[in-house]
C-alpha cells in the first residue's frame, strides 16, 4: 500500500465573516424580558447582537462567510477539496450543511462534513483541516463556523436570550508556503468533560438552549488558562509573544479572566462579543476576520485561539495570522 504525500505544515490563507443584517439591541430585549442594558453590559459584555432573518439559514450564512474567505485567499472553488462546517445548529440532521455549502460555492465534489463540538467547533475543525493538509488527504480546506442560535433560544428566558446570536466565520487552510515552510497552525490541545454535559444543553428537538451560567463561568475561568498555556508551549510561542488572543466570545468577563491568567500583555484581546453576541462556533473566525479587516492585528504574527463550550468540549491552538 502507498500513502499520500503531505505538506510539512498547514497555514491559514484568509478569513471571512458574515453577520445578518438585523441588529438586536439590549434596549429592545429589555422591552420583552426583565433586564436592562446596564445589566447585560456589565455581566455579559454585549451591547448588541445580530439575528438572522426567519428564512435565512445556517448554510446561507456559511456560504457568505466562506465566499469572502475564498475571495481573500486568491484561490478558486476548484482548488478546495475539503469543506468542514462546524455547527451545532444545522437546519436538519441530514443532508449535512457542508455539502450544501460546497455546492452553492461551486466547489465540485469535495470531502464535506459537519462537525459538532459546539463553541469549540471552529478550533476542532481547524485542527482537522491542518492534519488533513499535513497528511495529504486534502490540499486546500474550507473551515467554517456557522450558527443560527436564535432558533433554539427561548425568547422569554432572560438568562439565555440576551447572550446567543447568529453569524458565520470561515478560514481557508492550505499548505505552508515555500521556501521557508514555516508552519502557520500549531499543535491543538483539545479535550472534553462529558461529566459536565448538563451545564449547556439543548436536550431534545422540542427544547430550547439552557445554560447554568454560574457553573460555566467557574469552569471557564479556572480550567481554560492551563489549556491556553499548553497550546503556546507546544507551539514554542511564549504568551508574551502573542500579538492576538482570540477566545470564543462567550462572555466578556470570561474572556478578560482567561486573558489575565494567561499573561499575554502584548496581545490584542478579541472583544467581538460586544457587537456580535455569542455565536458559538462562528465567534472565533468572525472575530479574527473583523480584527484583520480593521487592521488591528499584523499579518505574520502569532495568535492564540481557544474554543470552549457545550459538551463540555474545548480546544486551543496557536496560528500565524494571514
Amino acid at each position, binding site marked *: 500500500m502507498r500513502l499520500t504525500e503531505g505538506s510539512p505544515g498547514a497555514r491559514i490563507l484568509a478569513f471571512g465573516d458574515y453577520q445578518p443584517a438585523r441588529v438586536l439591541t439590549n434596549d429592545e430585549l429589555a422591552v420583552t424580558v426583565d433586564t436592562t442594558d446596564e445589566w447585560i453590559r*456589565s*455581566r455579559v459584555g454585549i451591547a448588541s447582537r445580530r439575528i438572522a432573518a426567519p428564512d435565512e439559514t445556517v448554510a446561507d450564512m456559511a456560504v457568505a462567510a466562506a465566499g469572502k474567505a475564498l475571495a481573500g485567499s486568491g484561490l478558486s472553488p476548484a482548488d478546495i477539496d475539503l469543506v468542514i462546517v462546524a455547527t451545532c445548529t444545522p437546519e436538519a440532521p441530514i443532508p449535512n450543511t457542508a455539502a450544501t455549502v460546497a455546492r452553492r460555492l461551486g466547489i465540485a465534489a469535495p470531502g464535506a462534513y459537519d462537525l459538532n463540538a459546539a463553541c469549540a467547533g471552529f478550533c476542532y475543525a481547524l485542527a482537522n483541516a491542518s492534519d488533513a493538509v499535513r497528511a495529504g488527504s486534502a490540499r486546500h480546506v474550507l473551515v467554517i463556523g456557522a450558527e443560527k442560535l436564535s432558533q433554539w433560544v427561548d425568547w422569554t428566558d432572560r438568562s439565555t436570550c440576551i447572550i446567543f446570536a447568529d453569524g458565520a466565520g470561515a478560514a481557508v487552510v492550505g499548505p505552508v508556503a515555500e521556501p521557508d515552510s514555516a508552519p502557520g497552525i500549531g499543535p491543538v490541545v483539545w479535550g472534553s468533560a462529558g461529566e459536565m454535559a448538563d451545564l449547556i444543553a439543548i436536550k431534545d428537538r422540542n427544547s430550547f438552549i439552557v445554560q447554568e451560567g*454560574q*457553573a460555566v*463561568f*467557574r469552569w471557564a*475561568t*479556572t480550567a481554560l488558562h492551563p489549556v491556553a498555556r499548553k497550546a503556546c508551549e507546544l507551539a514554542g510561542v511564549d504568551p508574551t509573544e502573542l500579538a492576538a488572543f482570540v477566545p470564543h466570545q462567550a462572555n466578556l*468577563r470570561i474572556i478578560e*479572566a482567561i486573558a489575565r491568567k494567561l499573561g499575554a500583555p502584548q496581545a490584542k484581546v478579541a472583544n467581538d462579543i460586544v457587537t456580535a453576541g455569542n455565536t458559538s462556533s462562528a465567534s472565533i473566525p468572525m472575530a479574527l476576520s473583523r480584527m484583520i479587516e480593521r487592521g488591528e492585528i499584523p499579518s505574520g504574527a502569532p495568535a492564540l485561539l481557544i474554543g470552549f463550550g457545550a459538551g463540555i468540549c474545548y480546544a486551543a491552538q496557536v496560528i500565524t495570522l494571514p
Partner: protein
Amino acid sequence: MAMTEEEILAGLGEIVDEVAGVPADQVTPEKTFIDDLDIDSLSMVEIAVAAQDKFGVEIPDDQLKDLKTVQDVVDYVRRSAVSA
C-alpha cells in the same frame, strides 16, 4: 497552621481588590458584597476561586449564595480550614 481571623480578612481584602477593584481597606467584616461593595454574582465566583487558591478552602456555588457579608466568608474559611 491555622490562620487567624485577621490573616483571612487581609487575604480576602487582597482578593477583592484584585478581582473587583475594590480597595482592600474597604473590605471590612460588616460589609455585604452585593450592596455595600457592589460585587455581582460572577465576581463572587471569581472571589471563591481565588479564595480556594489562597486559603485551600473550596467554596461551592450552592454555599456561595449564602455568604452575604465579608464576615460570612471569613467564618466559612475558618470553619472549613478547621474541619479539613
